[in-house]
């Protein structure tokens, strides 16, 4: 199956693309998907603990099963800073 991964902000800059299509085994989870991506982008892995994920535009746990055609958003960390 294939999923579309959308990356934003710092995550997008590390990967170099805002969107990538990735082939996965049936039954893969968000966590499985991300392990594959982290393997290729160690700098992204460094912020792994702070990333959250959206599947089809709703926040999702890493344990969530993916389906063919899903859109997975990689949501970079919140800064915690407040300026306005």
């Amino acid at each position, binding site marked *: 199956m294939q999923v579309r991964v959308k990356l*934003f902000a710092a995550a997008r800059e590390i990967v170099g693309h805002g969107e990538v299509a990735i082939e996965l085994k049936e039954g893969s989870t968000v966590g499985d998907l991300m392990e594959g991506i982290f393997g290729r982008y160690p700098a992204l892995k460094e912020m792994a603990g702070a990333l959250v994920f959206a599947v089809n*535009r709703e926040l999702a746990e890493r344990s969530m099963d993916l389906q063919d055609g899903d859109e997975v958003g990689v949501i970079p960390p919140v*800064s915690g800073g407040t300026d306005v």
Partner: protein
Amino acid sequence: MYEVTEKPLSLEGVVSAITRRTCGAVATFVGIVREFSRGRQISYLEYEAYPEMAIAKMRQIEGEIREKWEIEQIAIHHRVGRLGIGEASVVIAVAAAHRQPALEACTYAIERLKQIVPIWKKEVSPDGSYWVGMGS
């Protein structure tokens, strides 16, 4: 009434779009690029959104507001791309029959927007650039 756009935002346009004959009050919030952020001089900002999810989350905020307050209309427009100092990054407008729900809902909307709407900004300053995330 939700927009994520590269074009300059128009406060007057947003307000007139949501005002009905039944509205006695419009409360608005405008977020503006400041000269300084977290103590650093800002050259400009780059806003980036996950637009489809941002719009979905704005709709969610409207749903939360309508459970809490009697309002007529709400609009949230967020700009993306490069913004200079003094430019508006977000305009929120809430129209209601009465002032209290308009004002309270507007305050709620900007707080929730900062919490759940996937929009980031990169602060570009003479000494480097920094991504600042949701919640900021």
